[in-house]
């Protein structure tokens, strides 16, 4: 009963109750902090570089020991010659300055970077391209797993039947052309290529072709 009495009397009591500390506002002005945050944000957004440079790994052929026979160029080998003004020429097989063994002397054919080059390479590399496509299909159908696919693809690219390509450049070529050509090889699944020194007879032929 006493409790109840107290409860009912609390109305009158309330005003005289213990003195409460005045409630301070807990809000802090965050504007400067936000300003700073955005300033930093802008700074980092603008200065950070996302496009990390990528690389192309390339292995150069180990020079053969002196006195060993020169490697044979057959019809499966193609040579690309880079020269000034982003022009590229190519020929197949062995280089012949003069007609030899009943075969005509080497003639250079020009090919344009881009679609033409892509078409040419795909045409030359058709055999390998087909088998890699086949492997890809098998991988999609879950017949082989990723690691098997990679192994098979590497094997196909390095198979003896695969054509091989030689890149040579004269003094006037720029580095970009070399990268473009190697890149095109990679796109076309060509695994066998090498960059070597140009021969003087090839330079002469190139000069003839470009002066035309």
């Amino acid at each position, binding site marked *: 009963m006493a409790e109840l009495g107290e409860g009912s009397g609390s109305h009158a009591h309330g005003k005289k109750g213990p003195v409460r500390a005045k409630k301070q506002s807990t809000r802090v002005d965050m504007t400067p902090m936000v300003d700073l945050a955005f300033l930093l944000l802008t700074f980092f957004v603008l200065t950070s570089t996302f496009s990390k440079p990528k690389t*192309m790994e390339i292995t150069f*052929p180990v020079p053969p020991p002196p006195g060993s026979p020169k490697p044979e160029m057959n019809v499966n080998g193609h040579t690309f010659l880079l020269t000034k003004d982003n022009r590229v020429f190519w020929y197949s097989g062995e280089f012949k300055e003069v007609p030899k063994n009943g075969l005509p002397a080497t003639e250079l054919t020009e090919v344009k970077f881009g679609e033409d080059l892509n078409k040419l390479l795909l045409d030359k590399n058709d055999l390998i391209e087909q088998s890699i496509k086949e492997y890809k299909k098998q991988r999609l159908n879950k017949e082989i797993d990723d690691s098997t696919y990679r192994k098979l693809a590497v094997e196909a690219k390095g198979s003896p039947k695969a054509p091989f390509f030689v890149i040579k450049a004269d003094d006037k070529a720029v580095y970009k052309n070399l990268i473009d050509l190697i890149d095109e090889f990679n796109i076309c699944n060509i695994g066998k290529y090498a960059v070597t020194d140009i021969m003087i007879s090839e330079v002469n032929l190139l000069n003839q072709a470009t002066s035309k």
Partner: protein
Amino acid sequence: MPKIKMPRSNPTLDMTPMVDLAFLLVTFFILTASFKNPEPVQVLTPSSTSEKMMPENAVLITISPEGKVFFTITGFDVRKLTLQRMAAKYKLKFTEKELEEFGKMTSFGVSMQNLAKFINTEPGQREKFPSTGIPMDSLNNQLSDWIRYGGYEGVVKFKELKDEAAAAGRTLQTEPLRFAIKADGNANYIIVKEVIKTFTDLKIYKFNLLTNFEQGPTE
């Protein structure tokens, strides 16, 4: 008729979510940002469809559009030790301070004889230093020496780190030393060939050519 009372809305709105987001982004950018090291030369690499990342631990040869050659190698200690070896070979003296400064430096493209002068140039002024490129003709192939000593120190350092990690039972985060060429797309091929020849003469046949990423044809 009752009066229509527009509810008076409080003009201060709660900015907490926005601030949260802003700080989240700030944190993200601070953590992911990698600052571009000031380089003495601007190089525009050609683009390729290759998706391999740039090696973290590398001997990096930069070739400017004019065909000047610059050199750098990853690691403060490695750079210092390499310079010490080079100084011994070329019979030059570098002070401790110069060695320290060289350790902090990125690429440089001056001959050994001018290196001290280059090191003593204020970092901000180095871009204006008349860099001639590292000599690499057959009579005075300083680039070859840089690659050889740098490569040696880099490999030694990597082995040290590897042993340390193995002793502590950790897996090593750093990659083995690689050799990379970062050439401008318009650099003459003949210079690149010279550099490649310098590498192959040192029996280094595998290296990386830095490129920019470009979307390849989709299949």
